Each structure stands twice: as C-alpha cells, then as structure tokens.
C-alpha cells in the first residue's frame, strides 16, 4: 500500500508541472499580460513601471520559472481586487464548495443506486423504461437550467425553500439536488449496465441454484462486484461535478470557490483565477486517488 501511494504521488508530478504550464500559458494567450493590470488610460511610463514590477519584461522562460517557484510555495501573487494573497482567498471558499459537491454526491447515490439496481433486475419494466427515459432527457438538459426550474417549482410556486443564499440546511437542498440529479442520470446508467453484466455470471447462477432469495443474492454477492466497475468510471465524473458546481454556485449565489473564480473572471483578477484553477485540479487529483485506494475496501482481491 505504501509503495502504491508513493508511486501514485510520483505520477502526479508531471501532471502538476503540466498544470503550471497550462495555467501560465493561459495568462499569456494575449501576449503581454501587462495590459490586464493597468487602467485603459495609463501613460507609457506607468505601463512600463507595471511591466517591470511584475517582471513581464524578462524572458518568458524566466517568468515561468518565477511563477512555478511561487506555485511550489503556494504563492500565486496578490489578488488585484482584494489586495491580499490569492491562495488563502481560494482556500477559504473550498469548504463551501466541498459541502455542495459532497451533498450532491449523496443525492446522486441515493437516487441512482436503487433506480439502477431495480432497472437491472427488472429489465424492461415500467420503472426501467421510465428511468432510462429520464436519464436520456437529463443528458440533454443544461444543469443550470434544471436548477432554475427547481427554483420555479420549489421556491416560487410551492414556497417551500429559499431562492438562494446560505444560512441553514434549506439553502443547500435545491443546489445539491440540481448538481446531484445531473450526476444521478449518468450513475444510474452505469449501475444498470454493470449490474446486468454481473447477474449473468456463473457464481450468481450458483447462488441462485442453492436457493438464495433474490435480494440476498444482490446484496451479498452481486452488489460489490457491480460497484467495482462503477467506481472506476465514477472517478472520471468528479471533474464534471466540480465544474458543474461553478455554475450551480452562480445560479444559487452559493459562496464557494466557483463563484469566487467567476467574480475574478469578471474583474480580470488573474491571481485568483490561477489559484482557483490550480486548487480545482488538485482537488480532482486527490479525490481520484482516494477513489483508487477505496478499491481495496470493495474488492479484497485488489492489493497494492
């Protein structure tokens, strides 16, 4: 296990280097970034002063190395808007984003697991066809629009839940439902197809032959094996979840990392954008690592 972890951490290094190159490269897409730091009516002297102060007059490679060294220390420079270091600003918002994504994850599993299992065990039943139909439509629906429709239903029409903001758990319901349902459609399809494959295996036939009841069969023998392949694909969905959180946070005024980044984009606050991209990517890598390690819990045959 220790060896495996070490190898995985070492494999992250090239990706992290690539990440710094992409983040650095994005800010240079328009050439000299000096103009993003000065007012439109700045004089040539002012522009030159800013260019020197940020080191934009140095060779590109040197600029990159300075940037990468900063990243190693967790230093992305100062936020243009808040006049304080960008990294702590981003980290401050991480718990809100994690709260949202984890509750969305919970919603997704609570919906997808029973639906997927029933769809597989009662193939072509009314439940199966309904679930498949809904998941096709869910694939085509923009996530944020679903959120707006939920506001319409639960807040405007029924008046059950607040429209946006934070405070108590009721503020979390619609955002996590919005984000979770998007994921649930994919997850249901995954669980259904994986379960269909597993219940055709011989050991299931054996278990059935010895007279085991259907639900005992599912929970004692089939579920674990079904989940192994689901979890693999699921790791890839984490990125989607974090990306979706950006928009959902904006729709519901949820004070997470995504909303901070978006505001940074509106005000051209480069340091915050860079720190935000870096932290999101890092989160995804760490979550994927946790997913991979969790295999050992699901399948005792897998040993690292």
């Amino acid at each position, binding site marked *: 296990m220790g060896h495996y972890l070490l190898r995985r951490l070492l494999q992250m290094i*090239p*990706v992290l280097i*690539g*990440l710094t*190159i*992409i*983040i650095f490269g*994005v*800010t240079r*897409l*328009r050439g000299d*970034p000096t103009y*993003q730091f000065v007012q439109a009516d700045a004089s040539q002297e002012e522009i030159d002063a800013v260019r020197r102060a940020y080191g934009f007059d140095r060779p590109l490679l040197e600029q990159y190395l300075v940037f990468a060294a900063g990243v190693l220390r967790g230093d992305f420079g100062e936020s243009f808007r808040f006049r304080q270091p960008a990294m702590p600003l981003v980290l401050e918002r991480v718990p809100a984003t994690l709260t949202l994504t984890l509750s969305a994850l919970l919603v997704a599993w609570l919906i997808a697991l029973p639906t997927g299992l029933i769809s597989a065990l009662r193939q072509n039943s009314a439940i199966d066809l309904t679930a498949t139909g809904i998941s*096709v*439509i869910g*694939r*085509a*629906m*923009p*996530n*944020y*629009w679903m959120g*707006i*429709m939920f*506001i*319409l239903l639960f807040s*405007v029409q029924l008046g059950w839940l607040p*429209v946006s903001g934070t405070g108590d758990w009721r503020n979390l319901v619609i955002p996590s439902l919005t984000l979770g349902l998007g994921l649930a459609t994919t997850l249901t*399809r995954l669980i259904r*197809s994986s379960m269909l494959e597993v219940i055709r295996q011989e050991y299931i036939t054996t278990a059935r032959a010895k007279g085991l009841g259907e639900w005992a069969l599912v929970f004692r023998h089939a579920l674990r094996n079904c989940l192994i392949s689901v979890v693999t694909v699921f790791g890839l969905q984490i*990125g*989607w979840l*974090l*990306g*979706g959180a*950006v*928009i959902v946070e*904006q*729709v519901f005024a949820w004070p997470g990392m*995504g909303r901070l*980044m*978006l505001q*940074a*984009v*509106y005000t*051209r606050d*480069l340091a915050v*954008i*860079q720190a*935000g*991209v870096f932290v*999101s*990517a890092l989160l*995804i*890598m760490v979550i994927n690592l946790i997913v991979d390690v969790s295999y050992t819990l699901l399948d005792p045959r897998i040993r690292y």
Partner: protein
Amino acid sequence: MAQTTTTTTALKSPESLIRERPRVGRFALAMRRLRRSPVGLIGAVIVVAVVIAAIFAPALAPHNPTRLQLGRRFLPPVWMEGGSWAYWLGTDQLGRDIWSRILYGSQISVFVGVASSIFSGIIGVLIGLVAGFYGKLVDSFLSRVVDTFLAIPFIVLALAVAGVLGPGLLNLIIVLTVTGWVTYARVVRGEVLAVKERDYIMAARVIGQQNWKIALSHILPNVAASVIVLTTLNVATTIIAESSLSFLGLGVDSRTVTWGSMLADGREHIATSWWMATFPGLAITITVLGIIFVGDWLRDVLDPKMKE
C-alpha cells in the same frame, strides 16, 4: 439489432454476399436504417428544424429580436390572461419577443457548436494520430498533456481562458476548442494503437511507404467512423457549454441574442415571469436531445462496436 444482422450475414455463403453487395449503396443503407429507427428519425427532424431556424431566422421571426418595446414588457404566453398571438411565447423585461429571440439564438448555438467541434476535431485527431502512430516518447509526452487537460474541469479551464481573452465570437470558439480536443485525441490514439499492428499496415511498411502516407491513407479512414460519431455528440456537448458560458456572461458580446443569455435574464425575473427562463431552456434541451439521437443512430450505423 445490429448484432442480429451480423449473425445472419455470417451464416450466408461468401458468394451470396458478393452478389448482394453492390445492390445497396452505403447511403441507401443508412437511409433504410434511419427509417427503421424512430428515435434516429425524430433526432434528424429536430436537427433539420433547428438548422432551418438558424439559417432562415430573419425570415421566420415575426419581430425584431432586439427591438425594445417598453410598453409590452413581461407579456405572458398566448394561453395565459393578457397574452396575444402576436407574441405567443411572451416577451421579456424589455418587451422583446421571446419566440423571435429563440429563433435568432439558434444561430449562435449552431454556428459555435459546429465550428468548435470541427476545430477541436482537427486538433484532437492530429494529436491522437501522432501519439498513437509514433508511440514511445512522443506518445508518453502527449498522453501526459492529455492527462493534464483532463485534470482541469472543463468549465474551470473555459472560465480562465474566457477571462483572459474576454467575450467575443472568435474567443468563444477558441475557448471551446482549447477544452474540446482532448476527447478526440484519446479515442483516436486508442484506435490507432489497435489498427497499427494489422497486417496491411505492415505490408505498407514493407513496400516502403512513408509514415505520413500510411497514417493518412491507411489509418485515418479506419478511425473516421468514430470521429464522425464523436463530432456529432461533441456538437451537443458544445451547445450546452456555449449556453453555460453565455449564461455566465462569458459568451459572445451582450448585444447578440443567445439562449444562454436569455436564461440569465430569465433567472433574474424568475419570481414574476416564468416563461422567460422556461422556453430558452426547452429550446436547448430539445436541440441537444435531437443531436444525441442522431449521434446514437450514427454510431449504430457506422460503428456498431462503439457502444457505451
């Protein structure tokens, strides 16, 4: 269904197969399958309708989509009290006709969706081809690049790029291309790896054909089917992505009508005018659904192996 067809043809004698082949062309066969697939047919009808709406929006739209009519603000749809047939889906906070705006909005969705899918297709196919074909160092380098792009959530990267480039049609296409090529590269690389070891590629090498010629004339045609299917489905993803960015105010400039920016207005006035947020969202969902149906049908026709 595709599987049954394969089994039955496999049982026939080779002679009968040869005799049968020239009778139906590929196109005719595809059309015949389209008639047999109701879902594909529905998708095709939707896609054709959306394309017609986009091209002929100026002729089809009953009103100027950007004309302000403050006297007609927040008109409800025709079936509600106060609605009228002249503005059958209602009007927005500035009195602009929702139906005309939906028709015009399809232009940006279709154009941006198709253009960035083609551009990211070209870049992704080239990179995947090079990675799979040359292998070794080139492959591991390019694969790390792909891994890195996959580590950043699409919308986060798009935000960063859009934040630096600013709004605008061309910038929007660049954003969606920068983030969209990765899927193509992964799929094409995998397929090239599988095709590369086949005998006829070896034969081409033996007779001394140049690498680029082998790649273009022998390997590329083999991955074409998957690329066509990927491009179709990518148009659907891109339309959603474009609408998301427009919703966030990072799409084309604010004067252009887009479904995403209509939804942003609708979100503002959700408490009083539900129709403003409902109809543009329906337009996106129906369009994307149509494209997905066509994409799935194309996959069944062109590439039965590539099921999810």
